[in-house]
C-alpha cells in the first residue's frame, strides 16, 4: 500500500514537472538553472524511495537521502542566486 502511494506520488510529481517544463520551455533556458537540478534530484530521491520500498536495500536508502541532500543544496543555491 505504501509503495503504491509512493509510485503515485512520483508519477504525479514527474507529470507536473514535465508539464512545468513544457510551459516554460520556450521562454527560459532551464537546463542551466539550479532549481531544475534541485527538482531532478528530488525526483531521483523519490525513485530511490520507491525502489527502497520494493527491494528493501539499505544502499538505496543511503543514495535516496544523499540525493535529497544534493537537491536541498541546489534549491538553496537557486534561492540565494535569486533564480526563483
Amino acid at each position, binding site marked *: 500500500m*505504501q509503495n503504491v*502511494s*509512493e509510485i*503515485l*506520488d512520483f508519477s*504525479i*510529481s514527474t507529470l*507536473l*514537472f514535465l508539464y*512545468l517544463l513544457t*510551459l*516554460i520551455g520556450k*521562454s*527560459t533556458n532551464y537546463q542551466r538553472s539550479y*532549481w531544475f537540478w534541485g*527538482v531532478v534530484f*528530488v*525526483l531521483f530521491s*523519490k525513485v530511490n*524511495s520507491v525502489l527502497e520500498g520494493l527491494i528493501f536495500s*539499505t544502499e538505496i*536508502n*543511503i543514495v535516496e*537521502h*544523499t540525493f*535529497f*541532500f544534493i537537491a*536541498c*543544496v541546489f*534549491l*538553496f543555491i537557486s*534561492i*540565494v542566486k535569486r533564480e*526563483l
Partner: protein
Amino acid sequence: MENYIVTVNILSALILSLSAVIVFVRLYRNRVQYKILFGVALLILLAGSIINIYQHTTVQENAEEFEQILSILFLPILIFAIYESIIGEQLRNRIKSEQKFKGIFDQTFSFVGLLDGEGRLLEANSTACEFIGYRKDEYKGLLFPETRWWKHSAEEREKLTVAIEKARLGKTVRFETTNIDKDGNIRYIDLSLKPIHDSHDNLIYLIGEGRDITEVKSTRLELEKHKKNLEDIVDKRTTELKTANAELQIINDALQEKNTIINEQNSKLISALNDLKETQAQLFQAEKMASLGVLTAGVAHEINNPLNYIIGAYEGLKLQGIHAGDEDVETLLNAIKTGADRVTGIVKSLNQFSRNTPSDNEECNIHEILNDSLVMLQSQLKNRIQVHKNYSNETFITFGNVGNIHQVFLNILSNAEQAIEGAGEIAIKTSKKDNHLIIAISDTGKGIEKDELTKITDPFYTTKDPGKGTGLGLSIAFGIIKDHGGSLEFESEVNKGTTVTVILPQKGIKHE
C-alpha cells in the same frame, strides 16, 4: 549507516531552514504569492526531513506515513511555486514593457492610431484624442474616415479611403491632408499609413501617423509668396538689364564703326607718313646730289682756268717750234697735251654731271653721256675692268635733262663696277628699235637673286654690304627714266652677271 542518514538529514534540514528564512525575509520585503508557496514548500520539506531524522533515531511507526503525506504535498507545491515565479516574472516584464510603449504611444507629439485590416480605429494616442476632444474609447470600432477628424471635408474622407485601400494592399502611403480640431480650426496634417503583417504575411494592422504641419505649411506659403515677389523683382531687373544691354550694344556697334573709320584713317595716315618719309629721303638725296653738283661745277670751273693756261702755254710752245729736232721735248709736249686733254674731258664730264638746268627738253647725246660717265669712273675701272663699247652708228639722241640722264648712266655703271669683285668686264651696247633708244649695260659681276630683282628699284633696298649703298641710286634712276618716258629692265644670273637695259624715246619724239 543510520548515522550517515541522520547526518545527511540534519544537514538537509539546516539548509532547508536557511533557505526558508531567506524566502520569508524576502517575502516580508515584497509580498508575492509564489514566495509564500516557496516558503510553504520548504517548510514541508523541512518537516519531512525532521520526521526522517526522528524516524531513524527512534522507532516510530506513524512517522513513515506522515513523511509520506508530506512528500506527496511537497513537490506539487514546489513546482507550482516555480511556475508562478517564472511565468509571473515574465508577465510583470511584459506589463512593464507595455506601460513603457503605451507611454511613448500617448506622449509623442505625433498623432498615432492603430487600425484593423478593415480600416476601423482600434486605438488612438492621447495627442490625437486631445486634438479632436475624443474621450477614451469613444472612437473605438469606427471606420477611420468616419471619425470626427475628417468630418469637415468629404474630399479629404475620400482621399483617406483611397489611402487605406492602398495601405491594405501592402503599400506605405504618405500624403498631405487636413483635419479639423476641437475648436473647429482646419489644420494641415502630414499623414502616413503603414501596413503591419504577421509571420504569414497576413495584414493585421495599419498604423496611421500624422504630424501637424500647419506652421510649416504657413511658413512655406509665406516663403513661396516671398519667392514669387523675388522672382518678379528679378524678372523686372532682368528686363531692365536686357534693355540697358541692348542700348550698350547699339553704342558699342557705333563705337566699333567709328573705331573702324579711325583705323582706316590711321592706316591712311601711316601710309601718308611712309610716303612722306620716302619723299623726305628722296629730297634729302636730291639735295645732296644738288650740293654735289654745285661743288662739282665749282671744282670744274676752278680747274678750267689753270687748265686754259696749260693748254695756252702748250699751244705757244708748239707754235714757237721748240720741239723741232728734239724728240725728248716733243715727247714731253705730247705728254702735256695728253694730260691736258684728259683733264679737259674730266672737267667737261663734271660740267655735264653738275648741270642743273631745269629744262627737260635738252638734246641728250647718249653716247657722249656714256663716255663722260666712263671717264668719271676711270680711276675705279682701270687695270681691273675691261669696258667693251658696242655703240650704234646711228645718231643716238633723245630729249631730256642731260644732268639727270648722266646721273642715271653713272649710277648704272657704278653699280656694274661694284658688282665685279676682282677682274671683270663691262659691255655697253646701244641700238634702236621702234623709235626707241636701247642701251644695254652688262657686267660679269656676282649677279642678283631672282626674288630680289623685283625689289631693287624700291627705295632704300640694297644688295650691297652695309655702309656701301643707300638703296636710293636705282630708285632715283628709275624715277628719272620714267620721267623721260622710258623704262628700265633688269636681267641677272647669280655668279654670271647682270644686264640693265635702258629704253628711251629717240629725238623728235618728245615725251609727255
